[in-house]
């Protein structure tokens, strides 16, 4: 919490006069509200963007009416619709778990934001095990999905939840291994220090380190993170065409919206991790561009990755379950092991 505190102190000097407990509480609450606001805004924007991208990739226009300019208010209208819709809980569902599942999924997503370094000074919590924390917290979401699928008491939901569990647990391994390749070199797990270690120009970023080994690690991380957040081509847990809606078949209204919000927040988190670890976080690609503030670079890089995720979604069909497992265990995992080995050798030599 130290860097965050310093950040707020510089912004509002009068905070240092407050008693510590008050200052900590206020700063914490304000940060959480800021991050929640960002998640909500990002989700709205990403939903709009995704609909526009999907439409234009299929030579359509997408939403054009609500709000005037290219239907920019469409996601707001959708969110209001979800808010006022009837909240249905199936009669035979396990009510407690059913209600808890979206909460867990969204909490796990929001918790990941705690260690994202937005700029040199603004990082909600500069943990020395930041990367480890984010990996462990994001795997929390599996419990939420499994819970939702189980509590719905519906075979589609359960199938979806089972797939989600097997897929996300499998793909955590290549994700962690790909990141490990970088951590080994940087010697730190703090998100902030990982970025600081990459300062310089674009060639100092970790993607171009040990070329092309880390680039491949970045590629592996990106593919595996797609599976982590259940995006096409790895969207088996919610495959509409085979499982109706997967784990969220029975969800409606705001509970469904929270699943959705969690999914989009996760999209941003995995992109932000990739940005921090491989693409130099808040750093500008060239020294000359340093006048543009860090958060813009950070969000810009993450949004580019989000765009690539969407691009892939509207390009590729869904994988089969066995293909999914093949990709994970027979391709991504051995390759990431090989990369760790090679980078280790390179460093030792």
């Amino acid at each position, binding site marked *: 919490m130290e860097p965050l505190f310093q950040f707020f102190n510089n912004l509002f000097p009068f905070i240092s006069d407050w008693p510590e407990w008050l200052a900590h509480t206020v700063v914490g609450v304000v940060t959480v509200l800021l991050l929640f606001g960002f998640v909500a805004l990002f989700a709205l924007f990403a939903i709009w963007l995704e609909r526009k*991208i999907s*439409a*234009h*990739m*299929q*030579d*359509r*226009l997408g939403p*054009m009416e609500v709000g005037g300019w290219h239907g920019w208010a469409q996601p707001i209208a959708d969110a209001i619709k979800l808010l006022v819709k009837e909240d249905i809980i199936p009669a035979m569902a396990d009510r407690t778990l059913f209600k808890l599942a979206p909460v867990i999924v969204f909490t796990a997503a929001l918790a990941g934001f705690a260690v994202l370094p937005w700029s040199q000074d603004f990082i909600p919590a500069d943990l020395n095990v930041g990367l480890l924390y984010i990996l462990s917290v994001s795997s929390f979401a599996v419990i939420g999905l499994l819970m939702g699928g189980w509590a719905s008491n519906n075979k589609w939901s359960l199938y979806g939840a089972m797939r989600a569990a097997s897929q996300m647990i499998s793909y955590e391994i290549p994700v962690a291994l790909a990141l490990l390749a970088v951590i080994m070199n940087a010697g730190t797990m703090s998100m902030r220090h990982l970025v600081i270690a990459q300062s310089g120009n674009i060639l100092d970023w970790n993607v171009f380190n040990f070329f092309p080994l880390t680039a491949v690690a970045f590629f592996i991380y990106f593919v595996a993170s797609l599976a982590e957040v259940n995006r096409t081509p790895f969207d088996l847990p919610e495959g509409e065409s085979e499982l109706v809606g997967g784990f969220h078949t029975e969800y409606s209204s705001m509970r469904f919206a929270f699943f959705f919000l969690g999914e989009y927040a996760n999209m941003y988190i995995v992109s932000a991790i990739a940005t921090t670890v491989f693409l130099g976080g808040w750093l500008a690609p060239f020294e000359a561009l340093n006048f543009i503030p860090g958060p813009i670079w950070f969000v810009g890089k993450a949004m580019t990755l989000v765009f690539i995720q969407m*691009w*892939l979604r*509207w*390009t*590729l069909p869904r994988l089969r379950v066995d293909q999914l497992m093949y990709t994970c265990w*027979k*391709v991504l995992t051995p390759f990431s092991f090989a990369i760790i080995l090679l980078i280790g050798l390179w460093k030792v030599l």
Partner: protein
Amino acid sequence: MRQYFKNIYEAIATILVGMGVTWRHLFTRAVTVQYPHVKRELPERSRMQLFVEMDDCIGCMACQRACPVDCIDIKTVRAGKEEDLGETSNGQKKRLHVVQFNIDMGKCCYCSDCVFPCPTGAIRMTPEYEFTTYDRSSLLFKFATYTPEQISELQERERKEKEAQAAARAAKLKAAEEAKKAAAKNDETKSE
């Protein structure tokens, strides 16, 4: 082992090809026509809403008979002897008051079978397609221009005429019968 690496290479290569295709389409002009704002011109002979030019209708009921779903309902009243209802655009003389010409577009199957038999070209299909309503009864289109008073007047006149005719016919019949009877009597008397 070679196959394994070949598969990976092919997977990545083909995904890049696919991404190239979607990237190109991202900048292709959308084919969407934004309907309520932009309306596509329909072909001249589109079969949409039916329209009847009442000035040309001679009340021959050819369309009503041709209709496979009975959505046309016509009522006519014969014109009086001295009445001149004018001519249709192709020179046919109008002999009937068409007091009712209802088309239920809710029933219509847009087959256009009513259009072909029309001797004057009064009934035709138009390219007009925006006639959705909130109430099914609003799909009943009434083309006759007569007011209810005029209709009842005309019908009253027709009824009276018919009565008069019937009376005349009855009188004639009676006269004929009597004549027959008289003839029969004559015969009887003759044979006696």
